[in-house]
């Protein structure tokens, strides 16, 4: 039993990370109908910014955090202007390639600027964690879970109860209609990219003390978050959360009870099974073109 609880905790912790990054995927997808292949690089860049500010320059953690987040907002804006905006009238394929180019660019620019050494970002809390009965609770994972919960709540409030959130929703549902209603569509998309970059950044900073800071961290997390998005469906925010948590739990238990080396396959097998058996089920969005 303690074994199961321990696995469950780890699964939820890892899942929360996937969920955070997946959230960024979903937001951009809803606004632009495009999968952003550079989403993982947002996390990587933010983690490196934290290392620069908090470790190399020894600035206070909170200040470093604010600066890193500010940097991510700026990066999100530049990303929109340079990678998405010139292609906004194109189909999704050129945009995908553009984001792939951006991901190569960001990863290798960071490498050129900072060098290849993996870095350590100290955790927010001194205590590594504590035992509750037989289960060890890692404080950093507790923090990740808490922040994810808060961000999800914030997002819900933001989208459902603020005017700007509603405008964002309108933009993601029908850009032409939104433009007719006088919503500044370009501005809304800009906001989406900024927010997604910040979300990805927060995920990267949170996960850095657990997975270390390396050039590869973005790609590794993003692939899983991508799978989480698939399981949850690209359609909505709750899907990303459910997908992320489900993926974390599935792979942790799969690794424990079936096979460690095939850990990464479980998520995809479950996913294919879902798509084959019930494409309309868990996944909110239906694919139907109006005649």
């Amino acid at each position, binding site marked *: 039993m303690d074994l199961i609880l321990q696995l469950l905790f*780890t699964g939820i912790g*890892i899942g929360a990370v996937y969920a955070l990054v997946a959230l960024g995927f979903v937001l951009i997808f809803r606004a632009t109908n495009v999968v952003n292949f550079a989403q993982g690089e947002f996390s990587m860049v933010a983690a490196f910014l934290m290392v620069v500010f908090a470790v190399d320059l020894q600035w206070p953690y909170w200040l470093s955090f604010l600066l890193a987040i500010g940097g991510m907002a700026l990066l999100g804006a530049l990303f929109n202007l340079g990678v998405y905006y010139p292609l906004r009238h194109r189909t999704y394929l050129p945009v995908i390639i553009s984001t792939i180019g951006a991901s190569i660019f960001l990863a290798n620019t960071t490498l050129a600027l900072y060098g290849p050494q993996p870095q350590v970002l100290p955790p927010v809390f001194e205590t590594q964690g504590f035992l509750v009965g037989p289960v060890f609770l890692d404080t950093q994972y507790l923090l990740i879970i808490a922040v994810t919960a808060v961000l999800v709540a914030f997002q819900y409030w933001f989208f459902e109860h603020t005017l700007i959130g509603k405008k964002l929703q309108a933009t993601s549902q029908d850009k032409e209609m939104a433009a007719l209603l006088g919503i500044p569509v370009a501005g809304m998309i800009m906001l989406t990219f900024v927010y997604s970059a910040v979300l990805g950044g927060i995920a990267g900073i949170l996960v850095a003390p657990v*997975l*270390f800071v390396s*050039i590869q961290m973005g790609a590794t997390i993003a692939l899983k978050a991508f799978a989480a998005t698939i399981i949850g469906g690209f359609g909505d925010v709750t899907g990303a959360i459910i997908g992320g948590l489900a993926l974390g739990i599935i792979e*942790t238990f799969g690794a424990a009870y079936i096979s*460690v080396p095939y850990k990464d396959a479980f998520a995809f097998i479950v996913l294919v099974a879902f798509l084959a058996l019930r494409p309309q089920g868990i996944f909110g969005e239906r694919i139907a073109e109006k005649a």
Partner: protein
Amino acid sequence: MRTTRRVFLKSAATVAAAGVVAPSIIRPASAQGGTVRIGMVLPVTGPGADAGRFALNGAKIALEAVNKAGGVLGKPMELVTEDDQTTNPGAVLAFSKLASQPDLVAFLGSIRSTQNHAMAPDILKTGKPVAFGGTDPVLTQLGNPWLFRFRPNDSFSARVIAEYGVSTLAKKKWAIIHSTDAFGTSGAKALTEALGKAGATVALDQGYTNQSQDFTPVVLAIRQSGADVIGSYFTFENDLGIFARQLRQLGVQAPWVGSASIVNVTALKLAGPSLYNTYGVADYAEESSDAARNFGKAYRAVMKLAPDNQSSWTFDAVTVLAKAINAAGKTDPKAIREALLAIRGHEGAEGTYNFDQNGDGLHGYNVVRNDKGNIVFDKRIDFYKA
């Protein structure tokens, strides 16, 4: 839009033209006959970029020493590098690019076994000696006469791990944790064999894929297996770091004897206290010999960083290649090969080099202990019989 497009196309054309021209500009500059040149394949990009930097530094320190001592055949020695992007095709392209320059007399290959496997056919075709650092025992049994290993292979590391754990630590119930890549699987196989011979049992043999984000299931499996000692083959330091931390968090206190990566600089930095009191079989241990101490001193002076095996093997490789070329008296590949095979008792940073007919230079390992972050030399176990 039209003008920007034209400007872009023009500059793209310029870049393309520059790309075509640039190599030809570089070639004449490098083709001077005033130096003896050796090629080096190393990761500058990709997950191995870190290791590549260490490797390059080790080689450069040796190069400087060689040239200070008069170079080879009266000429300065020169190093030409290519990026392998930490991938197999990248390694093949990097090597063939180097091999296409006829004035390179010998090469430094990769520390990764799979890359050496990938390059092996081209190495055979090129027919010049290649010093490499991958530890998969099979590499020197391919019947490829041009491969020379400058680190002890994993059949030795496994025997040392087993011998140390069983005789010195007196532990008989083992858990083996290994990466599922070439290095990890061959190491685990050798360890299982060595443990069988030493009369110990394997309670758990657990592989994992590289770049795992979580090891909780692995640690719990170790806990449940009741193993009283852990043997490990980790490829990447961040995997090792995550595993080490979770192992301690989940309360596993069994002694842990790991392959070389457990004591390398990056792992120590990433894992910190989680690795205290672990044991590593290290091909490089600073306190193991005078040669190792001297290398350590030189390395610290340049890098302000503790040395490890990623730089020591390239240091030895460059030193030994220079020695062999000088001994051969010419840069003919066959002569260099004969000179390399004739090397006996060379005191290198990694240990004493005695090349056997397969091209294996080293036949033993050091056992070191992590004492609060400092690597303390324990003993050397060598299987070489002259």
